[in-house]
Structure formats: structure tokens, C-alpha cells
């Protein structure tokens, strides 16, 4: 017990723990604290109570001012009393004319707790009562999911009017968002609910006039409710407008409220603008800056106290730079237009404001902005932001092992920052004077990029360092747009300029060199560029801190290249190097590091080390959950990897819902990189293969195959998986076509790599099943020589295919000799059995049948059925056949 301590000593200890806890990430504080408090619950509670006050605006902290305290402290005779069918429970708050209580229905059929508002004693003048009744009338006509509903009303025993509202148990809009560190997009989404409610009120001829965050409560489940129509106004009059009164909240009041001008629905638009300002920027518009620039206000704050701005930004899940950029752009313009002092320049309606916000959410031009070329170009680049951010052309994935995939996605969150730099630079350097503004309105954004390139090229002689930097960025834009024809020459020009510039442009020069090498290595499968990539890595390594991120990308390229040429042995080390570089570049936890962990998991999965993939995948997933506000694409990618790792470790039933949700979310999120969507679909298709849902899987894979046009390993992976699906559907010819396509894509030149051995075995299997035994025979002999002693998975698969061939050739004994060790292994696998085991047992049963060993056949059929039943959700042909055969045997009628 701590009570024995001197109180000051005790407080000192509390403060010490509070400060210590502040150094922990918010999510880890409770656990950290529990360890420190070692069972002293009172101490722990005290520290937590204190921490709960961190960052809460003082006016929201309970009982902050004396005035409020005095009211709370005074005994309220109404507590415990009854009003109509409600019992007053406690006081919730007090306004100018009324007091709000929490009240329970005494005998109500619906046991809903309500907020009961009652005119204050002594305030029941005719005017106030009239206003009170008007609020009730107004509420009675408003029924909307985002407006607290009127439930009941009447006159109390002592003649004071009251009414009961739906009790909204929530936090104020600002607090709700801050506590959850919601990003700007999520804040806008919530705000749109408020707009919806206000627009609805307007349609019902009600102006709220007192819109402020404290009147917008958000419940625990995230539902926003608009409250307090206490000074709302009915617009019933023919004029459609009314005079302002003295009642208002000055901080949120529109200019016409101060000047007693006309109160219209646009008064609410202004107030919504103030709320939006505070919601996005964390500060209310300065009095002098009404209608002015929200970004300017934050820039001023940055001058005064960068830490404060950083804290504000962090509460919005971004950095100070990103927050300033966002508010300097369309969002800032929307706020400014909503807050125009001149009503004629303000949004004409809440609907128009909401419409612009929705446009911002979709990433399309908003009406608050003049449609300049510069603006359209920015929107174009932003829509392609994820794409601009990706630094590599390859995106989908390689299966090629047996049922595993690798999706390569490149550090999207960090790259978004890079893209921001690229955007800022393109803007500043090329569009600063808006040189294209006069050039007619139909110039497309891509043309501007290409003109920007021309300008950069023109500068190359005078300022090679700047040219190298710009050309590398512009090259990155083309890479991400998948336009290799433009990307390559741009990057080559960057390289040439950079080499002239020397050390000043080292990071960009080597970045360009690494990208070019990656193209050649991965897309062309030409290993001649390996030396270039190594050179870039070496130089970047020597360049220290500023080169870290580029170095990490180059190491990613290298791991990618190793994977692409089938050099699996090199992968673990390369992947560890890349991971470490990302950790140093971005810190931990960070969205970039989580993505790099996801990359590592995907690589390990791809080289058949699924068990090792679990740890990084789970770590990445946990990190993303904790980060909360990472870029949606990075989050989706990490979820995909986590689900993939789960599936690869036999945890299909956990993986499937995750993937389905991720896919739904990816499709619902505007602007999600289509490659990311395809990656998730790919993962899902593989899962369906595992679950025996071959028809569904084949459909998805055919679509993916049609979309994957490049000659990378991705296409091979998709066709290979499609072959599996077709085999599962008993369509050997379609399977053969798919495997042959996969082989042609990947293995013409390097048939000896592990993935090509796997595809070769699959193709041989399809040859056997479609009766082309001679081709199968020679291929299997060749593969036999090629499979190394340590390639156990490949050997096991070879045994099954070779045994199937012998059986098809009529030599059951030879088949048995080949398959025996594999069948033994399958029987021993027990709980860890997979479908390959089941298929080996089915084959063994067929051999036993040829050899007349009915008992052995039945036993292995049962074993196979159990395994299939455990693993498959669907009813594939193979399972139906096994069951039919078991029935036939058990009913004593073997054919």
C-alpha cells in the first residue's frame, strides 16, 4: 500500500511513472505500467487517471473552471426525483436556459436511458419558455441517424417544461478523433456525417446556429450525433432568413451573427468551416484570420514551436510536413471557402461543402479551386500517388514453389513521402511560375511530366546535380506508371547527369543506377546488370545516413533479383540486409519497417520456409495494428502477407476472413493500387486452392493471368497456380496448357532454378494425366538428374509424378518402388498432413489396387479421405472419386 508514504513522496513517484509512461508508445503503456507498479493497483490507477488527462484540452477536462465546479458541487434537489415517467439520475450539464440530466424511465416499456432537459428554475420567463418549446418543436420534426432524437416531453409538477432526448454517451468530435489519432481522411469522413445531419435539418427549414465540436458527440461505435438545437431557428417565414440574436458561441459564430445580419443556412456553413478547421488543424482559426489560410496559421505555429506542430501532426497520424502540405492544398481551400466572410463567396449550401469534401476523398478536383493546369497535374499525380510511390515495376508475385507466393510491394508509406518530395519539387522547380498556365487548357498532366523532363534535360549541362535529382524522380514517376519506354531513357539521362555532377548527386545517381539494373535483372532476366546493382549498393553504403532509404531500396532490388533467377540460398541473408537497412532508414515501429518485414515474410514463404515467415509477418501485422494510421496500401499489403503466412502454415481458416476483408476494403478505397488488389486476389486464389475450391480459384487465376502482361516471374506464378486449379478440376489438358505457359515465361533460359524444377514437375504431371507418357518420361529422367540431394520437397513431388507415370505405363511394381518412401512419409505425417500427402496416398491406393491388395488400398483411401476432408472446404473431383471407391470396396463390389 502506498498510503504509508509521505504524500509528496507518493506524488513524486506518480509523476515519475507518468513521465516514464510518456516515453512508451501509447499502446504499451498499460503493460509497462503494470510491470512497474507490481501489483499496487491504487498506484497504477492513479497514474492511469493522470495519463488520461494528457492532451485533453483543458476545457474538456472535468470540472476545470470554478464556475463549473460550483455548479456541480451544489446539491441539486432534483437528483432522485421523478419527472413524469423518468427518475432523475444525475446532472449532465447546464446551458443558458436549461439543465440536462441523465434520467431512467421508471416504468417504460422501452428501458432506454434518456437525456432530460428541463428549463432552469428562475429562468422560466415567457421568452425562455417559448424558446425551449421551440427547440422541442424543432426536434420533433427532425428524425435522422446523426441527430439525437426527441423521445418525450411535457410539463413538470412545478410547471417547467421538459423534454427527453436520446442519450448520447460519447465524446466530443475533437476528443474522439484525437484520442484515436485519426488521420485527416477519417476525420473528414466523420465530419461528413455532421454535414449530412445539418443538411437534413436545412431541408426541414431548421438552422442550427450553434455548431461546434462540443455539440457533435461521437459514440463508442463511431456514430456521430448532432445535439443542442437550443438556439436553432426555424426558417418558416417567407423571407427564408431571420435576424441574428445575441445567443451564440463566439468562437464558432459567423460574421453575420456578430453584425446581426441575416441568419441563413450559410451561417451553419460558416460554423461547419470553423469546426472543420479545428478538426483538421487542431487549432481554431485565429480571430484575425477568419477566412484566411489554415496552413499559414500552422506555418506560423511551426515558427514559434515546431514541437507543438509535430505533436498536432502526430495526433493526425502524419508528420508536420505532410499536415502542412495537406492543408495547403484542397483541404485548406475548402475550409477557406466555407469560412468566407462574404456570404456570396461561401459555399451556397452544406451539400456543396460536403460534395467538395467527398471529391477530396476520391482524389478528384474540387470546386473550391480554380481549374488550373498546375492543379490538374497535382491531382493527376496524387491519384497515382501509390503508383508514383512504388519504385519497382514488378508487383504481383511468384508462386512457383509449391503453393506459395511472393508479392513485392515497395515501402509504400515511406515512398509516399518520396512522392511528396517529387511532387513538391516538380511544382516548385517547374511550375513555380506556372509556365504552362497560358498554354491552353487541354494539356494533359502526363505531357507536363514529359515537359518537366525536357526542362530537366535542358538544365543538365548547367546544373547536373539538380538534373540528376529531378530526372531520377521523374523516372520514378514513369516506372510507377509502368511506362518503361519513358522510364529507361529518363533514368539513363539521370545517371549521365549524376556522373557528371559527382558526389553532390550520389544518392540520386546510384538510385537511378539501381533502378535501371533492376529493370534489366528482373524484367529482362538478364544477369549482366548484377555488377551495376552491386556498384550502386557499395556506393550508397559509403554515403551514410542520407543514402539509407535508397540503399534499402537497392537491397530490395537485389533480393528481388536473386529470387527472380531462382537463387534461393542467397535470399535469407539478402532479405535480412534489406530489412536492417529499412529499419535504420525509417526507425521502429514505422510503416516502412512493417512493410519491409512483410517483404521478408513473403520472400521466406516463396522459398518454402513458411514456418520462418510466420514471425516477421506477425510482427509486421502487430506493428501496423499499433501504428493505426498507416497508409491504407501499406496496411493492406501487410495484412495480405500476414494472411498468406497464416495460410502457408495451415491456418487457412484464420487467413480467409482476413483476406476477404482486405479485398473488400481495397476495392472500397478509392485510388488503391490495382497491383495491390491483384496481390490480395492472388493470395485468396491460392487459399482457395488449398481449400479445394478449384472452380473459384481457376476463375480468379484466369482473370489475373489475363491482366498480367509482363514477362516477369509473376505471370509464370499465376499460370502455374492456374495449372494446379485445372488439375484439381480434372482438366488435364487445360492444366498442361497453363504449366507450359508458365514454363515458357520463366524457364526458357534458366530451367535449372528451383522454381523451374517445380514447374517442370507440374508439367510432367499434366503430361502423365493427359496420356503423353513419352514426353513425361524423358522430362522426369532429366529432372531426376537435376534435383539435388537437399531438395526434399522437389524429390517428394518427383516420386509422385514418376510413380504415376510407371503406373500409367502398366508397371505397378516399379511405381510402388518409387512411391514407397513418399507413401510412408505421408502415412506418418498425421496431424501435419497436407493435400500432397493425401494425393500420394490416393496414388498408393491405385497401385495397391493394380496389385490386388484390397486391404492396403482401403486403408490408404480412408487415410486420404480423412486428410482431404480436414483440409478441403469444397468437394473436388478427387475427393468424390475417393469416396466412391471406398463405398464400392466396402460394399464388396470392386470392379
Amino acid at each position: 500500500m502506498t498510503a504509508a508514504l509521505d504524500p509528496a513522496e507518493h506524488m513524486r513517484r506518480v509523476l515519475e511513472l507518468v513521465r516514464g509512461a510518456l516515453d512508451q508508445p501509447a499502446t504499451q503503456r498499460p503493460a509497462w505500467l503494470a510491470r512497474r507498479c507490481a501489483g499496487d493497483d491504487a498506484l497504477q490507477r492513479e497514474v492511469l487517471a493522470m495519463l488520461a488527462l494528457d492532451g485533453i484540452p483543458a476545457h474538456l477536462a472535468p470540472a476545470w473552471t470554478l464556475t463549473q465546479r460550483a455548479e456541480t458541487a451544489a446539491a441539486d434537489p432534483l437528483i432522485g426525483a421523478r419527472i413524469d415517467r423518468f427518475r432523475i439520475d444525475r446532472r449532465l450539464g447546464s446551458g443558458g436556459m436549461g439543465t440536462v440530466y441523465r434520467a431512467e424511465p421508471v416504468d417504460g416499456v422501452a428501458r432506454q436511458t434518456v437525456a432530460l432537459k428541463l428549463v432552469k428554475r428562475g429562468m422560466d420567463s415567457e421568452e425562455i419558455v417559448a424558446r425551449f418549446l421551440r427547440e422541442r418543436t424543432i426536434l420533433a420534426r427532425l428524425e435522422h441517424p446523426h441527430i439525437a432524437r426527441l423521445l418525450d416531453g411535457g410539463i413538470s409538477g412545478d410547471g417547467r417544461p421538459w423534454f427527453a432526448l436520446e442519450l448520447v454517451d460519447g465524446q466530443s468530435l475533437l476528443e474522439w478523433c484525437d484520442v484515436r489519432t485519426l488521420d485527416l481522411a477519417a476525420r473528414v469522413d466523420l465530419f461528413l456525417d455532421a454535414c449530412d445531419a445539418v443538411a437534413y435539418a436545412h431541408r426541414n427549414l431548421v438552422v442550427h446556429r450553434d455548431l461546434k465540436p462540443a455539440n457533435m458527440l461521437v459514440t463508442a461505435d463511431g456514430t456521430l450525433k448532432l445535439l443542442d438545437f437550443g438556439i436553432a431557428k426555424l426558417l418558416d417565414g417567407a423571407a427564408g432568413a431571420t435576424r441574428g440574436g445575441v445567443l451564440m458561441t463566439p468562437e464558432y459564430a459567423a460574421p453575420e451573427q456578430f453584425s446581426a445580419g441575416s441568419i441563413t443556412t450559410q451561417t451553419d456553413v460558416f460554423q461547419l468551416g470553423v469546426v472543420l478547421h479545428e478538426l483538421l488543424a487542431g487549432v481554431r482559426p485565429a480571430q484575425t484570420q477568419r477566412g484566411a489560410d489554415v496552413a499559414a496559421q500552422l506555418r506560423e505555429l511551426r515558427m514559434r514551436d515546431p514541437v507543438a506542430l509535430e505533436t498536432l501532426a502526430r495526433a493526425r497520424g502524419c508528420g508536420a510536413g505532410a499536415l502542412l502540405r495537406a492543408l495547403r492544398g484542397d483541404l485548406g481551400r475548402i475550409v477557406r471557402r466555407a469560412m468566407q466572410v462574404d456570404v456570396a463567396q461561401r459555399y451556397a449550401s452544406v451539400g456543396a461543402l460536403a460534395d467538395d469534401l467527398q471529391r477530396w476523398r476520391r482524389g478528384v478536383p474540387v470546386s473550391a479551386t480554380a481549374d488550373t493546369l498546375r492543379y490538374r497535374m497535382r491531382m493527376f499525380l496524387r491519384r497515382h500517388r501509390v503508383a508514383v510511390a512504388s519504385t519497382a515495376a514488378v508487383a504481383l508475385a511468384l508462386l512457383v514453389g509449391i503453393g506459395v507466393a511472393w508479392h513485392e510491394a515497395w515501402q509504400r508509406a515511406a515512398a509516399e513521402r518520396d512522392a511528396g518530395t517529387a511532387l513538391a519539387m516538380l511544382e516548385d522547380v517547374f511550375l513555380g511560375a506556372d509556365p504552362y498556365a497560358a498554354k491552353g487548357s487541354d494539356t494533359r498532366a502526363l505531357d507536363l511530366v514529359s515537359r518537366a523532363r525536357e526542362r530537366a534535360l535542358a538544365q543538365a549541362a548547367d546544373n547536373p546535380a539538380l538534373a540528376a535529382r529531378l530526372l531520377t524522380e521523374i523516372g520514378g514517376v514513369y516506372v510507377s506508371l509502368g511506362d518503361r519506354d519513358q522510364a529507361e531513357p529518363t533514368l539513363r539521362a539521370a545517371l549521365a547527369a549524376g556522373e557528371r555532377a559527382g558526389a553532390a548527386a550520389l544518392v540520386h545517381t546510384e538510385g537511378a543506377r539501381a533502378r535501371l539494373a533492376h529493370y534489366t535483372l528482373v524484367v529482362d532476366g538478364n544477369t549482366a546488370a548484377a555488377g551495376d546493382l552491386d556498384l550502386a549498393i557499395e556506393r550508397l553504403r559509403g554515403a551514410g545516413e542520407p543514402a539509407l532509404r535508397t540503399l534499402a531500396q537497392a537491397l530490395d532490388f537485389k533480393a528481388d533479383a536473386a529470387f527472380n533467377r531462382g537463387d534461393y540460398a542467397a535470399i535469407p541473408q539478402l532479405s535480412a540486409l534489406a530489412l536492417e537497412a529499412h529499419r535504420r532508414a525509417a526507425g521502429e515501429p514505422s510503416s516502412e519497417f512493417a512493410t519491409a518485414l512483410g517483404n521478408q515474410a513473403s520472400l521466406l514463404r516463396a522459398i518454402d520456409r513458411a514456418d520462418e515467415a510466420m514471425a516477421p509477418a506477425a510482427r509486421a501485422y502487430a506493428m501496423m495494428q499499433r501504428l493505426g494510421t498507416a497508409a491504407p496500401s501499406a496496411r493492406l499489403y501487410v495484412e495480405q502477407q500476414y494472411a498468406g503466412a497464416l495460410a502457408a502454415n495451415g491456418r487457412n481458416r484464420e487467413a480467409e476472413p482476413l483476406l476477404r476483408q482486405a479485398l473488400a476494403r481495397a476495392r472500397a478505397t478509392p485510388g488503391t493500387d490495382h497491383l495491390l488488389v491483384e496481390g490480395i486476389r492472388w493470395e485468396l486464389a491460392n487459399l482457395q486452392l488449398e481449400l479445394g475450391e478449384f472452380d473459384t480459384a481457376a476463375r480468379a487465376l484466369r482473370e489475373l493471368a489475363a491482366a498480367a502482361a509482363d514477362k516477369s516471374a509473376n505471370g509464370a506464378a499465376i499460370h502455374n497456380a492456374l495449372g494446379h486449379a485445372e488439375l484439381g478440376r480434372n482438366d488435364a489438358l487445360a492444366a498442361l496448357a497453363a504449366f507450359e505457359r508458365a514454363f515458357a515465361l520463366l524457364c526458357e533460359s534458366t530451367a535449372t532454378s528451383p522454381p523451374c524444377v517445380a514447374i517442370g514437375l507440374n508439367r510432367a504431371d499434366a503430361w502423365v494425366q493427359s496420356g503423353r507418357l513419352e514426353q513425361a518420361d524423358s522430362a522426369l529422367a532429366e529432372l531426376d538428374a537435376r534435383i539435388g540431394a537437399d531438395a526434399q520437397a522437389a524429390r517428394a513431388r518427383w516420386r509422385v509424378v514418376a510413380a504415376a507415370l510407371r503406373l500409367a505405363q502398366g508397371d505397378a511394381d516399379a511405381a510402388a518402388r518409387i512411391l514407397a518412401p513418399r507413401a510412408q512419409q505421408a502415412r506418418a505425417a498425421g496431424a501435419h498432413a497436407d493435400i500432397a500427402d493425401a494425393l500420394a496416398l490416393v496414388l498408393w491406393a491405385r497401385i495397391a489396387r493394380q496389385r490386388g491388395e484390397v486391404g492396403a488400398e482401403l486403408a490408404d483411401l480412408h487415410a486420404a479421405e480423412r486428410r482431404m476432408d480436414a483440409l478441403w472446404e469444397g468437394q473436388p473431383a478427387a475427393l468424390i472419386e475417393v469416396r466412391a471407391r471406398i463405398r464400392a470396396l466396402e460394399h464388396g463390389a470392386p470392379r
Partner: protein
Amino acid sequence: MEPTPPPVAIDALVAAVRAGDSEASDRLFALLYEEFRAQAHVLLRLGPQQTLCTTELVNETWLRLSGRVLAIEDRAHFVNLAARAMRQLLIDRARRRHADKRAAGEVLTLRAATDVAGEEPFDVLALDRVMTMLQAVDARLAEVAHLHLFGGLGFAELAQMRGVTERTVFRDWRAARMFLLRFIQEIA
């Protein structure tokens, strides 16, 4: 009102304070108290719940008195005194008004210009009492809060002055603020 250069050489006073001259310190304190009183009077006459931006007051007062930018080595001494003077002035005012007519203490919005939470309405007397409590518990936190609230010092400057990182200062301020929020509720 056109500011007139004061008869005292404020630079010399600050230099004397820096050298440890306690009489100079008293004189400077009195000077600042008067200055703040005059300026706050204009502002607070407008009514209750006004915003007093301590950063602006402290900085502008210095500029008015000396006509030049304060050297960093003098800044700590000056702000220390200024914060004390400001706090004393606010307490005196609140006490007077308390005695005057009001049941409650004066509620004043102090703005240190740099606070994340924006303007914070403080009941000055309650705040003073809780600050004194904090002083007894943790003098370092109390000083950070004192200089930040009453001296209007930003975190960057506080860090420089105390030779620690901004992060540390900000953490101290957050802890101090939590303490104030927590106990201002209790003592009333």
C-alpha cells in the same frame, strides 16, 4: 500610447541580475510588474474570460523597454523575473476581484502561444495553489510549468535554457500539465 524609452537602462539591470545583484533583481521585478499591470489592465478591462498571451506580453515588454532583441544569455534571467512578475500580478488581481464581489476566482485564459491544447481557461488562484503543490513535489516540473505558462517560453527555448532536449522539456510539461489538471479539480 507611444512607448517612451524608460529612464532606467534595462540592459544594465539585466546584466546586473546576471551578475547576481539582488537589488537589481528587485528593481527589475518591480519594473516588470508595473509594465504588465498597465498592459494587462487595458486587456482585462474588456471583461472576464479574456485571453492573455504571456508570450507576447513578455516579449513585447522587453522590446518596449530596451528597443532591441534580447541576447540569449540574458534571456533566462529576464524571463525568470518576468514570469514571477506576471504570476504575482495575476494573483493580486484575482485576489482583489475575489474580495470585491465574486464568489468565484477570476477565470483567465492564459495562452503560452505554444500549447497544443490551445487556449486554456485557468482559475488563477486555484492554479497558483496547485503550482505551489507541484513545487513541493517536483521543483523541476514546477519550474517548467512556471516559465511556460507565466513566462511564455516555448519548448525549444526552454530546452536550450535548461540544456536538455526539447523532447524532455515537452514531456516534463505534459506531466506537469496533467498534475495541474488533476489537482485543480480537487482543491476547489
